[in-house]
């Protein structure tokens, strides 16, 4: 996680460097739209390239694997003829680059093949499990934002004094703890000993049945679905189950967001307009929470989007610990069943989401800033 933070920080910095370069090149006066459009075209091209690279990597991983796809589908007793026909049907007799082309074509049509585990098409499985991950990552990000931003502001205002040190140390603790271990300890204390929260899974078994039989899934998010149906007992049970994994995951997002908020705030607080505001007699809380924080919010959007993307990744271990039926658990289960279609399909979906969020945050940064709109 610490690693992810430094890379992300780097990315933010780079995004800002790109931004500066763009301003230098921007034609003075008049028309802004062409630049805007080129920006989108450029991002689209970058997205396409990165996505193609992602597919190439998963394709190559799929090729290295010693499991023979023909053997996996037909079993060991198939005759030579059957094997040959299957090889033909799967396109395994074509040269590698054509096979790669077929793979890209299939993926673009949402076809990742069938899962051996569930014998559903992989894309159907993923559509089923992805909302659970999204729900968890969203609540965790909300947690990280609600606590991380105030913590970062407090750290910046008290720079070098004990609140700053405490916040910094708490953040470092977060970076150093294995997420699966923190989850287990959380389960032990808050579920096992104190009994304050629900155990592993998204719901208690009884509610799980009610959910299954009485409700038609609309969004796939139990919280939203049950609230819309007015089933508040299910809603509160789901809350008691999500709160712990979301807090564990949110701790990492808190550590990252508070660190970035602190450094952005320090930058703003040393600006002249802050001095001006103080000289004019604005109360200190207003200077900090309105003037300075207002200017920090734009780069913070980028940080939040990046941490959201990282949480999707961090959820693999968290989901395993909390038996949370999301995409992370799906991928790991598929791993142990040598279900390569499911592993690679899941990898592609998570990778694509990650890439899209990264790009989205870059884009947000460039265009959410009012200075970019003149």
């Amino acid at each position: 996680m610490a690693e992810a933070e430094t890379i992300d920080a780097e990315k933010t910095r780079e995004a800002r460097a790109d931004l500066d370069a763009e301003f230098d090149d921007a034609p003075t006066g008049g028309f802004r739209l062409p630049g805007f459009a080129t920006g989108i075209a450029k991002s689209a091209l970058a997205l396409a390239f990165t996505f193609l690279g992602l597919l190439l990597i998963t394709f190559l991983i799929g090729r290295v694997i010693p499991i023979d796809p023909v053997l996996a589908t037909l079993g060991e007793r198939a005759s030579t003829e059957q094997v040959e026909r299957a090889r033909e049907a799967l396109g395994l007799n074509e040269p590698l680059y054509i096979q790669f082309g077929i793979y890209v074509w299939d993926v673009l049509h949402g076809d990742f093949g069938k899962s051996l585990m569930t014998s559903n098409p992989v894309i159907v499985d993923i559509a089923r499990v992805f909302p659970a991950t999204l729900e968890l990552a969203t609540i965790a990000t909300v947690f990280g934002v609600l606590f991380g931003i105030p913590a970062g502001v407090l750290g910046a205002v008290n720079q070098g004094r004990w609140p700053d040190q405490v916040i910094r140390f708490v953040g470092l603790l977060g970076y150093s703890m294995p997420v699966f271990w923190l989850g287990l300890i959380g389960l032990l204390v808050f579920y096992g000993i104190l009994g304050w929260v629900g155990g592993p899974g998204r719901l208690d078994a009884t509610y799980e049945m009610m959910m299954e039989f009485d409700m038609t899934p609309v969004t796939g998010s139990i919280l939203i679905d049950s609230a819309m149906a007015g089933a508040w007992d299910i809603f509160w049970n789901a809350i008691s189950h999500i709160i712990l994994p979301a807090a564990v995951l949110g701790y990492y997002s808190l550590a990252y967001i508070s660190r970035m908020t602190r450094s952005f705030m320090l930058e703003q607080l040393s600006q002249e307009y802050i001095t001006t505001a103080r000289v004019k007699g604005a109360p200190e809380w207003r200077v900090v929470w309105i003037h300075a924080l207002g200017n920090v919010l734009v780069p913070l959007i980028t940080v939040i989007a990046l941490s959201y993307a990282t949480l999707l990744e961090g959820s693999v271990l968290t989901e395993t610990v909390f038996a949370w039926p999301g995409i992370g658990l799906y991928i790991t289960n598929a791993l142990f069943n040598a279900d390569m279609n499911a592993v690679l399909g899941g990898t592609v979906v998570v990778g694509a989401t990650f890439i899209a969020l990264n790009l989205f945050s870059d884009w947000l940064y460039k265009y959410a800033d009012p200075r970019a709109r003149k």
Partner: protein
Amino acid sequence: MSASTPRTGLRAWLTTDTPGSRRHAQAVQAYVRWRALSRNTLAMVGLAIIVGLLLMAAFAPQLATYDPIAQNLADRLLPPLSAGHWLGTDELGRDIWSRIVYGSRITLYIVVLVAVTAPLFGLIIGTAAGYFGGWVDTVLMRLTDIFLAFPRLILALAFVAALGPGIGNAVLAIALTAWPPYARVARAETLTVRQSDYISAIRLQGAGPGRVIFGHIMPMCTSSVIIRVTLDMAGIILTAAGLGFLGLGAQPPLPEWGLMIASGRKFLLDQWWVATMPGLAIFIVSLGFNLLGDGLRDVLDPRSAGK
């Protein structure tokens, strides 16, 4: 000793304003940085933890009280502070303290291997991209971006899935996902020295690209890469432990810390110590690397040092 007496000996040699040679200047700089670092209490705590880890790994046979894989079913799941087992025993009656002590060797083994291979690979890619420029640069940097855009743990999982579980493959998977930041750093450094006179001089003497890159550009990049490695250590430890926890890294009966947590998971609610103790070990070691890395960054990065 009064301030007016001229200082002599090693300390004077290390703090002089007028170094006599390049090596002397480097020694002076290293000493000044060490002084700055040693004033940072948290960084020193981190250093102490890492030295402790090294000592633990070196003297594992002396520190361990039992054989780390010897089973004794009569003594299974003893709580901490039982006679002879001060951290308790696991489900097969193995002494947890001894397993943690021997586990430090596995952790070090993984960290050192990744910390040697990933930066080297990144250095080669980055310097080649920066030195040749043009389409080589475009292709290599695109590749780097693709790997950077990929969630690391998921990529490592997919690699391990393809290669099969085991320590060696876990190291390979982590290294394959860890190199891109180093390539970035190395490329940036290469771009700054590529046009220098000394590089032109070497090329005019007839040195080929290989010689220029390996002999004259890479040494210029190593210091910034080394800083980066220290900052990455904790991340490597956590990823390795995560792979171990999922059962994709070290295999039983090896006393790998992540694996120990995974096996203790079954007894979490009744025998909490089995999963808690190895987790504490991972936590302390990666905290040590984080504290030291943070302090080092303050000392070596002039921008953050000023703050």
